[in-house]
């Protein structure tokens, strides 16, 4: 339902303008090549609690950052309380009456609770409030949020995660606000504290203030909001009344079923042709291998349910979820980078014996290799050559009495480069390659070690479409040769074309484990928001 439907009568239009707290039309914003926000449209009424819904990368956080003055839009209209708004800084937005709780809990751990609530309200030198005003203001806000008696002189680092998050909420509500924005502002709270916060928000909205929030939980959205605006790929696709719609309506808007189907068709069509390659690159064969990795009753967080997954040779397992739900913890547990809170991760060797993974080194020795997400920070040695970056992990294997067998490594590199169409000279610094080619180098480093399990943390982020297609092929060929792959991705479409099964993580637990053949975009989105995917048909 489009939101721009205003009655033509002048009186009604006036009335609508008075009722409107904040209105955004066709808001756009790009970061370099990426168009994070394309055409966002949103109307926030006075006294309304409004939810902003969408998948990862749909533009929610970008829109919120624009409304909060953190970033500036490239284009579009922004009206706040009847006049045109363009905030030069978060301070300006707060001054106008828009207070925001950001997704990350932004605090200074060494400073006190009181300082963390009130810093930023002052001018450069002048305090806006006296010390006693700050003390009583902090106590009042913390009382309202269900933290009475918290010592406001304590340094922030001594607080629990939930308390820290509530302090950032307190920071927002002590500023005189007309619009409160909460970007995943409840993610660390237990049910009791969340209800307390919701009660506060309802009270405030009954006084004519407006709330805009995002949540990774569909039940919270429906519990709290009166209307929901859905974003998809940076564009507003719908604004619905909660009273008149169901979970599945909203999920459908978020996942954009028709579009997803079209995408799948296209990608599958593209990959149908198999290009000649050194090893048998075939269509995905029916995969019935022996188990190679077992996740046994693993719990990721204190409050999460144990999960068990068995990964077979030649299988590609997808990992999906909204940001920060525990997917990263899971893949890090698989490769020994961190130990889960409970349960075990077991590698099954060729002889069928079980080995529990105890460390990253141990996982590596057992053939589990990890390709990190941030290739610049965690993977590549930027100033070193392409070849050295490729070969660094192989030296343990390719040496004789400690002297490196450069020839053998060169040969290995050449085969790999030819196979994946890696361009450029092996001697140029790796930082001079494009993102996609850098990723190929990093993938080559680990795949040339012939791992039994390859764990990939969002490997195709920032990679161009052609290279993506080449790498899909490459992953399939690895699987066809018997390697098991774990593939964490933030793009659902990618998981649907590449994987055999998809595990959806929600709040640290496995919400669903779907065979990809039966999975749809809608089911995965439903599970990402904590719903049972089978009810979403």
């Amino acid at each position, binding site marked *: 339902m489009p939101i721009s439907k205003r009655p033509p009568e002048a009186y009604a239009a006036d009335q609508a303008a008075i009722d409107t707290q904040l209105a955004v039309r066709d808001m756009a914003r790009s970061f370099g090549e990426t168009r994070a926000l394309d055409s966002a449209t949103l109307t926030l009424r006075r006294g309304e609690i409004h939810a902003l819904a969408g998948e990862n990368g749909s533009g929610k956080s970008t829109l919120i950052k624009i409304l909060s003055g*953190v970033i500036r839009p490239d284009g579009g209209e922004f009206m706040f309380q009847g006049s045109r708004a363009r905030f030069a800084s*978060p301070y300006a937005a707060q001054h106008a009456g828009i207070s*925001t709780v950001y997704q*990350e809990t*932004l605090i*200074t*751990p060494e*400073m006190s609770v009181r300082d963390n609530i009130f*810093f930023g309200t002052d001018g450069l030198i002048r305090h806006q409030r006296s010390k006693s005003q700050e003390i009583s203001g902090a106590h009042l806000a913390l009382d309202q949020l269900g933290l009475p008696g918290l*010592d406001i002189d304590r340094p922030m680092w001594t607080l629990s995660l939930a308390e820290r998050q509530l302090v950032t909420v307190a920071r927002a509500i002590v500023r005189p606000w007309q619009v409160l924005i909460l970007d995943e502002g409840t993610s660390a709270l237990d049910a009791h504290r969340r209800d307390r916060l919701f009660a506060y928000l309802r009270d405030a909205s009954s006084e004519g203030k407006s709330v805009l929030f995002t949540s990774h939980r569909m039940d919270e959205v429906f519990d709290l909001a009166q209307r929901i605006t859905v974003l998809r790929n940076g564009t507003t696709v719908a604004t619905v009344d909660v009273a008149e719609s169901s979970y599945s309506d909203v999920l459908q808007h978020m996942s954009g079923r028709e579009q997803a189907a079209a995408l799948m068709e296209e990608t599958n069509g593209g990959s149908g042709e198999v290009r000649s390659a050194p090893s048998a690159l075939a269509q995905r064969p029916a995969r019935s291998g022996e188990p190679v990795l077992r996740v046994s009753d693993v719990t990721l967080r204190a409050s999460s349910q144990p999960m068990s997954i068995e990964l077979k040779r030649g299988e590609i397992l997808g990992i999906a979820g909204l940001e920060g739900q525990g997917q990263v913890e899971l893949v890090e547990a698989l490769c020994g980078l961190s130990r889960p809170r409970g349960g075990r991760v077991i590698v099954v060797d060729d002889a069928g014996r079980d080995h529990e993974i105890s460390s990253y080194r141990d996982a590596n020795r057992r053939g589990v290799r990890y390709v990190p997400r941030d290739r610049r920070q965690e993977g590549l040695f930027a100033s070193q050559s392409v070849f050295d970056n490729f070969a660094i992990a192989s030296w343990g294997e390719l040496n004789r009495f400690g002297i490196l067998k450069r020839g053998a490594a060169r040969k290995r590199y050449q085969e790999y480069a030819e196979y994946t169409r890696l361009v450029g000279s092996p001697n140029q610094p790796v930082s001079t390659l494009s993102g996609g080619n850098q990723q190929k180098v990093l993938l080559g480093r680990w795949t040339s070690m012939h791992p039994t399990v390859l764990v990939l943390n969002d490997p195709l982020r920032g990679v161009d479409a052609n290279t993506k297609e080449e790498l899909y092929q490459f992953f399939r060929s690895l699987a066809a040769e018997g390697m098991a792959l774990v593939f964490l991705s933030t793009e659902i479409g990618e998981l649907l074309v590449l994987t055999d099964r998809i595990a959806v993580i929600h709040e640290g637990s496995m919400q669903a484990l779907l065979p990809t053949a039966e999975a749809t975009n809608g089911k995965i989105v439903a599970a990402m928001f904590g719903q049972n995917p089978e009810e979403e048909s």
Partner: protein
Amino acid sequence: MSELAVLPNDFVSSQRAALRRLSDRHAYASVPVGLCVVLFVVNLLVQPAFAGRADWATASGVLVPYLFIGMAFTLPVLQGGFDLSIGTLAGFMTIFVSTVLLPSGITAPELVIPLVVAFGLLSGTINGFFIVYVRLPPIIATLGMYLFYEGLGTAVLPEQGGTIPGWLVRLSQSYGPIPGQWFVVAGFAIVWLALSRTALFRNILVVGGDERAAYTAGVNVKAVRLSSYALTGAIACIAGLMLAALIQSGDGTIGAQYTISGITAVALGGISLHGGKGGLFGGALGGAVLFLIAQLLTDANVSIYAVQIVDGIILIVALSLNGTLDYLRRRLLRKSLAQSAVSAAVEEGQSGIRTTV
């Protein structure tokens, strides 16, 4: 609380007091304060006349520049930056006063002091401009200024020379029992205490603690950075005045040696180089420690070169000690927090009303 209370009130409040002590934001200074006390006592043992020494005024002349240099180096570190140019700027000030201002007839303190402070503010603002707006790394931008002042100093005055105004000479004399420099220290302390009660000091600590938290909360990060560099320049120039009072002339080479001293003072003062933690007091204490070491070794007739050896050893020992104490403090604090959480739960469970609100 009801009469069934398991935990008496005074127990709870004593626990609160313990928490306060452990989480005090001045706790960072415990190691430098301890070092100062220990070194002072050792000084007394080696040279019993140390406390009542007749040349206390002379000793103060040496100590006070260390205090200001230590504080100047600390300020940009608190907001997550750095300023290398402090030492040579201070050195250039001795020339500015003796060779530029004095010959042009500007000698009255009410003219000299504002001019010197203004020079420092301007110099610091230039540093800040290149760091904040041109986005040069602080070490590079201020290294440029370091070289600039060192070169300018030697160009204007190739060899130590010139004279300083009479009032600056008299700063090295005692007024009653108090050497003149201490009036400057006291004056600065009053100004700084007033300033640290303003929002500026909190703003500096937030920016040093987490720039994004500061920005999103509404802190004007650029203005905070710029003003902290400007203030740093002003403190450096006051240090330069104190140096001029010490050597009673101008000397373009004296500043460089204070650069390493300044950095050492910051570390000795318990200031984290990551920023966001501590205060100028720490830097002053660090400077005092350096002075006490130098004094001790001089009194003990040890070669001047040994001073640096001892400085280095004490620096490493002090930092290790600092880290260990901080760790223990945090562990203790966590423990007593867990305890008070239990007592709070008991309290809440008893009152019964609170949980249902």
